[in-house]
């Protein structure tokens, strides 16, 4: 017989797993957050204090220091939990309330914090048994209870909200962002002084770039054997072919990567997972890196560039397309399946008409990206106008007007990219 769950809508009784899982995850998240703060503190101490006094070397944590760091962050985590509404608690849907579903007083919070140590020493095993029905010592001492939000859905609206800066979560978020910005600023060696100091010395560069030299716009450069115009045409064709090929290949693959199409059998799930995995892996490798591979495989030149752009396009469009397939209105699919149609007929008559407009829009959007990418793919030997750009840049010091030539190339790229962007934007407006 099938199980007969109760239909009652009163307070939900959670299983041990449902009650403990969010508490464990929340605890870990808070611990990791405090660990991150400890790392940041260490870094800043090193930077501002230790290196200034000792001039070299790094402040390292001595062996006996590690337990202190671990215990210290653990204490902080327990404290944030006892005071309620910590980052982890709100992330995993927990609320610390009294037995009568009100916010606990400061006294109760302290009791919970101190009582926690007591219950850890006395009854560590009771953690496993702790649910709403079977409360732990520190909960009983302080008269509080950690509720999972879904078990107290009915009382949640009665709990007054607090201003974000008064909650544990809000303060912690500010601390985390603060540490990140501070440490990040130092690691990336941000230096506003040099940006202003050397502004004048780079002035000649701006002057040259803003007086572009279009001598070789149409007339080929005798040393390079090509002109800027044919370079940009090459780039546009590269982008066009890569988008077209990528789109055509991604179209059938996108159905294999859509949950609502594949999620009906274990084999389907396998194909879905594999497809999504492939899309994600290929997408996370930039076109420029694919360019390196293909420049060696098929030698330098535009063909390598087209291949690099195509493979990245397949993965990027494949993912976007799949998400569109997953987002279709399931109603018509149901209706067509109910007429006795085959699965592929359901896809052809139900899914395809729904996704065509967004497919076209995404493909055009990708074409924009590919045009921009095709202008620099030459950096790794992929051909296109980038070859001319980097050639002239390499002539700085040899040719007096090298920067002016670079300016001409940059100007051409800017105009073409802008124009194609504008056109595809207008077309996309029409479609969607």
């Amino acid at each position, binding site marked *: 017989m099938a*199980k007969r*769950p109760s239909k009652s809508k009163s307070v939900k009784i959670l299983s041990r797993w449902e009650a403990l899982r969010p508490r464990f995850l929340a605890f870990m998240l808070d611990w990791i957050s405090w660990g991150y703060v400890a790392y940041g503190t260490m870094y800043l101490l090193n930077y501002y204090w230790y290196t200034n006094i000792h001039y070299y070397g790094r402040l390292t944590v001595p062996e006996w220091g590690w337990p202190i760091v671990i215990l210290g962050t653990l204490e902080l985590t327990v404290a944030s939990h006892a005071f309620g509404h910590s980052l982890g608690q709100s992330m995993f849907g927990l609320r610390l309330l009294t037995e009568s579903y009100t916010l606990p007083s400061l006294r109760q919070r302290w009791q919970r914090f101190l009582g926690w140590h007591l219950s850890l020493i006395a009854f560590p095993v009771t953690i496993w048994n702790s649910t709403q029905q079977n409360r732990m010592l520190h909960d009983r001492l302080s008269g509080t209870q950690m509720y999972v939000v879904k078990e107290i859905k009915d009382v949640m609206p009665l709990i007054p909200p607090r201003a974000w800066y008064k909650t544990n979560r809000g303060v912690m978020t500010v601390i985390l962002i603060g540490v990140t910005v501070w440490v990040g600023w130092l690691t990336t060696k941000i230096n506003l002084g040099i940006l202003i100091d050397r502004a004048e010395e780079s002035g000649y560069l701006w002057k040259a770039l803003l007086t572009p030299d279009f001598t070789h716009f149409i007339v080929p450069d005798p040393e390079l054997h090509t002109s800027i115009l044919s370079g940009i045409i090459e780039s546009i064709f590269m982008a066009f072919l890569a988008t077209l090929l990528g789109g055509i290949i991604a179209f059938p693959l996108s159905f294999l990567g859509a949950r609502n199409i594949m999620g009906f059998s274990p084999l389907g799930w396998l194909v879905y997972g594999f497809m999504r995995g492939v899309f994600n892996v290929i997408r996370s490798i930039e076109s420029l890196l694919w360019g390196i591979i293909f420049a060696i495989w098929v030698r330098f030149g535009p063909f390598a560039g087209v291949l690099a752009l195509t493979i990245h396009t397949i993965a990027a469009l494949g993912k976007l397309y799949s998400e569109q397939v997953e987002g279709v209105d399931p109603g018509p699919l149901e209706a067509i399946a109910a007429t006795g149609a085959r699965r592929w007929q359901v896809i052809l*008559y139900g899914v395809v008409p729904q996704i065509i407009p967004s497919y076209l829009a995404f493909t055009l959007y990708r074409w924009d990206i590919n045009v921009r990418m095709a202008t620099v793919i030459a950096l790794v030997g992929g051909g296109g106008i980038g070859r001319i750009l980097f050639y002239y840049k390499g002539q700085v010091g040899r040719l007096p007007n090298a920067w002016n030539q670079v300016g001409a190339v940059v100007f051409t790229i800017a105009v073409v990219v802008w124009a194609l962007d504008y056109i595809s934007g207008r077309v996309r407006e029409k479609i969607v």
Partner: protein
Amino acid sequence: MAEQLVVEHLTKVYERGDILALDDVSFSVEKGEFLVVIGLSGSGKSTLLRCINRLVEPTEGKIYFDGVDVTAASGAELRRLRRKMGMIYQQFNLVKRSSVLTNVLAGRLGYVNPWRSLLHRFPPEDIEMALKNLERVGIRDQAYKRADELSGGQQQRVGIARALMQEPELLMADEPVSALDPATSHSVMKYLEQMNREDGVTVIASLHFLSLARRYGTRILALKDGKIVFEGLPDEIDEAKFKEIYGEEAEQVEVR
């Protein structure tokens, strides 16, 4: 008269959310009946209809259609069974970006040569049939418009035309008029009644309003929390029965 549809001990549990949608439901439908299923939202009406053509997989129980076990059918056999059961929906479930004609022709997918359907090339007689069915529901002149250009009532009539293309023996209507205003509701219900009386198609319709159920149904089935709480003729539902089905606080609403 022969029993066309037999449902035995049908139970459906939705694993996600642990919801018991249908609880041991048994009933049978004779050929030519107009059975109306009533009940509150969430009482299991939609699930019941969707179990019959297996859009929803039953957890337990058997369903026989013309003596064939629907619950055991799969692949080509299930498609043949589905072909004989037309269905229309609360939200019409049309492909909004396709033309009205294409939507109607989709009802024919269970019949046509699959290779022709790959190229969207339907036989001329099917196209003729589609236009005739559109004529029948009074929207022949809308055939080449996009489905979402039509009003709600017109869209539901496209849904009916699509179901007609299946030449169904059973028509299931899942709250067909809930999204429509009262006047349009009656015109849509009348088409269902017409199919039932003239073509002898068995109809199972779930409805919200008891007044509509009384007006069109030859028999009524009431569901509450997935269980059958009433089965009988429309006139047999008195005030007490009504309260039992819809709860103590309910008031009858008349839809004219």
